[in-house]
């Protein structure tokens, strides 16, 4: 990326291990501010783990991470997690109905989400408004993913991390979410980092991309690099995913 662009999140020689397993190896690179970057790579590459480092759910063993030009250690953890919102891969719901889940981020701050705002959020992610008081047990996997995005938006994060949020969605819903992501990015200038297995999605929606494998960043650059990767492993990965 060119030097005139601002950087939302920067990694410098970041290492992370868990239970003796070296999961992230010497990660260096940055995510441009106000852009959509996709993060692709095979299962177990460490993508979800990298996200957890970005919003402080985990801390690196060594190396530095900067969020909006501030060292991550200088943030209060709660402030960091509201600035860098994450829709987790598991799309976990708390017990209760859709409203309880949408209200959760505000409830944690002793505030309350209005019914109108709740319906607005449902509409935004493409869920029917009358789902507001439906029990989350009765939602499909794809509907939970949509709800999970809506819930993450409640904190109005400046940086949005989306982990495999379209994996359980049909083609039409996937396209809806793709449009939604573009719209959020254009409307609020929100920096979006998106983990996806779908390389077509990465090319269509993402402006930049990171390719990770076995805990390392292999290639970064404009999404176009996915069309002609330099690295042999990436070439094989791209071919495999495209099939």
């Amino acid at each position, binding site marked *: 990326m060119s030097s005139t662009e601002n950087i939302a999140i920067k990694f410098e020689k970041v290492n992370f291990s868990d239970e003796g397993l070296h999961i992230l190896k010497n990660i260096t690179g940055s995510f441009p501010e106000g852009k959509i970057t996709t993060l692709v790579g095979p299962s177990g590459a460490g993508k979800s783990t990298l996200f957890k480092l970005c919003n*402080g759910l985990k801390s690196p063993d060594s190396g530095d991470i900067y969020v909006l030009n501030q060292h991550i250690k200088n943030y209060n*953890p709660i*402030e960091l997690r509201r600035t860098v919102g994450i829709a*987790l891969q598991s799309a976990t719901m*708390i017990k209760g109905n859709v409203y309880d889940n949408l209200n*959760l981020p505000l409830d*944690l701050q002793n505030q309350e989400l209005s019914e109108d705002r709740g319906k607005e959020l449902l509409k935004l992610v493409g869920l029917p408004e009358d789902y507001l008081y439906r029990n989350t047990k009765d939602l499909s996997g794809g509907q939970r993913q949509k709800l999970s995005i809506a819930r993450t938006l409640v904190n109005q994060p400046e940086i949005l991390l989306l982990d495999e949020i379209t994996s359980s969605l049909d083609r039409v819903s996937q396209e809806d979410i793709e449009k939604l992501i573009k719209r959020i990015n254009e409307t609020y200038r929100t920096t979006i980092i998106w983990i996806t297995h779908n390389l077509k999605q990465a090319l269509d929606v993402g402006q930049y991309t990171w390719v990770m494998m076995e805990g390392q960043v292999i290639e970064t650059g404009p999404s176009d690099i996915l069309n002609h990767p330099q690295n042999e492993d990436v070439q094989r990965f791209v071919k495999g995913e495209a099939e």
Partner: protein
Amino acid sequence: MNYLTLSLTLIFVVIPLILSKTLKLGMEKDTIIAAVRSIIQLLAVGYVLQFVFESESMIYILLMIILMITAATHNAQRKGASIKGIIWKLVATFVFIEALTQGILLGLNITPATAQYIIPISGMVIGNSMVLSILFLNRFTGELNNQEEQTELILSLGGTPKQAVYRQLITSIKASTIPTIESQKTIGLVQLPGMMSGQIIAGADPVQAVMFQLLILFLLLTTAVVTSILLGYLSYPTLFNDRMQFLDNHLENDN
């Protein structure tokens, strides 16, 4: 009762032994160990108590209580699923509950400040607190393991550590104290409580025995609720570091 009649009660140990042998239940060894241990432990306690009662010294009473708390701590952390650094939290819980209950009993002159009252009541309070601790810890670590994703979700949305484990904490407090409350609802209908039975057999007036039993029951209500809440609030912060990250390796759930 004398030692001759006591030795006749061994018949009640021999019956299960014979049954176990003939039906090949394989419980002979454990039965014998259990019988021998109860004989040695209870007789030892009896002689120690006799000595403490006769000496009428507060120091010995205090030593007995310290001994009880040590044993209860050892047992609770060995038997229960655990959380890193739980030992001192158990000690603090037992010391607090003992001080609270004796403080009220002695402070309001409900019971006299003699070894005869302090020691058995302390034994019951600490013993029950120990059982409650084990119940609570098993449930709490189980909840935390099952709901780890929920903990992570709440943290990721900017919740505090307390908010992140609040549901699990409340569920575990409730689940561990409900048996105490429920069992008191039917007490006396199904079986007479052990302490009351013992007193009546030893010749006490049944109404007096009932009044003491009620005192104990009410004490145990406080013990149950205070133990779970205190242990819960003391132990959950250990599960997080100062960056408000959940440390799942601090859960030592080996059962």
